[in-house]
């Protein structure tokens, strides 16, 4: 029969994290309305990851946890990175390597409108 002493994050911390999350939500909606080209996707994914980290670190308390929990919480993401990287390396290089050597650009006459 033992008693557990725990350390719990304070109320202010929780609220601060919550506020940050809402702020990032606003930022991501705003960013999607702005034309950043390729960077739109990067911004969306980046902000989402930032939000995710806040949730994992503070709401899920990994920030205060033992190294073992850091490992366990990271393992899924690391293995996911393996899956993504190797599969995407296939998709991105399929046409590049497999198609016949590329000749010059086709020449088109553009019709009058």
């Amino acid at each position, binding site marked *: 029969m033992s008693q557990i002493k725990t350390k719990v994050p304070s109320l202010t911390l929780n609220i601060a994290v919550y506020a940050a999350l809402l702020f990032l939500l606003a930022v991501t909606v705003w960013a999607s309305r702005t034309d950043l080209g390729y960077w739109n996707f990067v911004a969306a994914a980046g902000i989402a990851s930032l939000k995710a980290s806040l949730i994992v670190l503070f709401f899920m308390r990994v920030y205060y946890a033992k190294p073992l929990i850091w490992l366990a919480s990271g393992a899924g993401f690391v293995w996911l990175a393996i899956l993504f990287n190797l599969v995407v390396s296939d998709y991105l290089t399929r*046409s590049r390597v497999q198609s*016949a050597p590329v*000749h*010059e650009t086709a020449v*088109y*006459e553009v019709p009058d409108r």
Partner: protein
Amino acid sequence: MDTSFRLLPEQASTFAPDVDLLFAFLMLVSGLLSLGIAGVIVWFAIKYRRNSAADRRATPSHMLLLELSWIVGPFILSMILFVWGAKLFFAQRHPVEGALEISCVGRQWMWKFQHPNGRAEINALHVPLNQPVKINMISEDVIHSLYVPAFRVKQDVLPGRYSTLWFQASKVGRYHLFCAEYCGAKHSGMIGEVHVLEPTRYQEWLSDVVTGTPQMGGGGRLFDQLRCNTCHMTGGEVSRGPSLLNVAGRRVPLQNGQQVVADDDYLRESILRPAAKIVAGYHALMPSFEGQVSEEQILQLISEIKAMSQLDAKKPEGELKKE
């Protein structure tokens, strides 16, 4: 076909000796290794059997150098094998220029081939000796795999996407052609024969319209039937659709500013879903031909488009661009 009992397959393509040499090297290495290990195990098992009088003093529980040696040794060996295998593979995956192009459609459960002049055949493939042959393949249903053991080549045939395979036959004869990817009930019936003929015999066979099903100029006829040339003028004039001369294999500028290489997959997509990638300067006017043309017909059209490019490439540059 040679149906006698043998331990190694026939070598009937230029790839075969290379692959067999690599195989022999690997056999040698792994044979030596496994016999060596087995020998050592048996020797130790007998020499150090319990109650034997063998010397058991000074037995190390680990030796870093020894451990490293059997990490580094196999590493070097495997890198040699990797590079060797990769070089051969790279050659297998890159057809030489000017190969004879034969199209192939796989379906449950037959192989259909079509030669450049339109002659088609089922479950049989006639190819000329000593000439590179490239096969453009697509499946109408599930995944199949074209496999000719005597040539040491194999490539899966996918639905919705072209894949290619090439070889150069080096020995006259008849060889097995298998489907190697499980494709349903009659998978083991999806087989055929490859006939390697002397080039002259091959030409004779191509023009032998009595025994085969002649489809001379199948692509061209289809081109007319589908009225492709109402928009795609073949003369190079300005028209509603982009000219198809000199398109195959080249870069095509798109409306969205990107470029795409007009490979078989792009041409197929443009026939089935024309609006997916619009050529710069044109409008999405073309109707979709999805469901109206079969995979074989698409292959015929593509080979027709390719033929236009080749025809034209021979003309002098000046004639190409009419002012």
